[in-house]
């Protein structure tokens, strides 16, 4: 019951984000807002697919590739959004700290392979690694990306919440608020809403 209510809350919040992003994209003819709409929209589609399966079939899909695909798409759009709002120059030297992100996501992917599929974990590691890489790059170059640093922080927070969800679903069970899974999911929902403000600031540059 809590899971369903929490899912509906997240879908409603993401629908709001899609609406705002779409509206901004239409008004400003902005590619960044189109990417933002696709980012929120893809995440929402994954949630809807998962919930629809639970409602009509009472089980999660036997082949979970569909919902995974929409979440892959969502993080890929987040990466494209980071690149769009703060493009880097070709041949630019990278800060060593940027490599920490992909290293962490790869290590976590290897760890989570105990529970999940190898290929899907590797794809998540690659995409989330890229998001970390781009976000950390924008944070270390603070002077150059002043307005974009909020979006970079929010991108990192969203990825960390995603990992929080994975950890809690591996170690905790039960449909009660004592399960940290729901807290991470609620924080992820809140992060998405705050991201709207961060995107607005980044696009305004």
């Amino acid at each position, binding site marked *: 019951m809590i899971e369903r209510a929490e899912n509906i809350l997240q879908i409603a919040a993401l629908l709001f984000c899609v609406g705002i992003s*779409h509206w901004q994209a*239409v008004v400003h003819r902005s*590619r960044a807002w*189109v*990417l933002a709409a*696709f980012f929120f*929209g*893809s995440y929402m*589609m*994954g949630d*809807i*697919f998962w919930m*629809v*399966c639970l409602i*009509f079939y009472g089980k999660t*899909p*036997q*082949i979970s*590739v*569909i*919902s995974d*695909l*929409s979440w*892959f*798409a969502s993080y*890929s*759009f987040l*990466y*494209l959004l980071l*690149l769009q709002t703060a493009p880097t120059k070709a041949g630019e030297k990278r800060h060593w700290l940027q490599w920490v992100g992909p290293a962490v996501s790869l290590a976590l992917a290897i760890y989570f392979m105990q529970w999940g599929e190898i290929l899907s974990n590797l794809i998540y590691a690659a995409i989330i690694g890229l998001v970390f890489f781009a976000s950390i790059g924008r944070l270390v170059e603070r002077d150059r990306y002043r307005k974009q640093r909020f979006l970079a922080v929010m991108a990192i927070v969203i990825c960390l919440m995603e990992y929080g969800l994975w950890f809690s679903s591996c170690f905790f069970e039960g449909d009660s608020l004592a399960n940290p899974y729901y807290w991470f999911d609620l924080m992820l929902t809140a992060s998405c809403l705050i991201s709207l403000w961060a995107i607005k600031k980044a696009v305004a540059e």
Partner: protein
Amino acid sequence: MTYIENIYLCLASPILLAVLCLRKEGRRILAFILAGMTACLLSAYISTYLTGVADIDRSEAAWEIAPAVEEIMKLLPLVLFIIVFEPKKKDAIIGSLYVAVGFTTFENVCYLTSYGSADLLRVLIRGFGTGALHVVCGMIVSVGLYYLWDQAWLRTIGAFTLLCFVITLHAIFNILVNQPGAVFWVGSAIPICCIFTYLALMRKRIDLA
């Protein structure tokens, strides 16, 4: 039993002849429609094969396998066109809509051959529901690619992400239209609502030029 390859031969042969006779834009449009029909035929074979391999029933395959196979097959002609001919932005983007139209036309003909065309309501739901869904998916890919066209890497990641997006949309639609009662009607109305919402927001038809 419906022999879809026979239907394909019957529908595709005049289009193929016209492709050979026409030039430039006319040829390209018909070639995309033909590619869409071919993609539909091949995806029927591949879906059936994968359903057997994964050992799941047909109704489950409709929302777990068919959406992924159909959307990938629909994107392949476009990918091939972009790689081989390096077309202009507008030509490639409009192409994805024509492929979708070819795909859904062939699928609808096969549906009518299997289930008949006597029930007007069912035929309308088929046309404005499932048929329109393929157009919506083609439209999403077109509009998405339009905004992500500038660089080759952006186009590549963009195509992948858009593909993932439309597969999920297609899967959700297939689940809803396989349910009885009000859920079926809501599911069937989604594609046409998407098109009207898009038109209302943009206040004009797609002109990607």
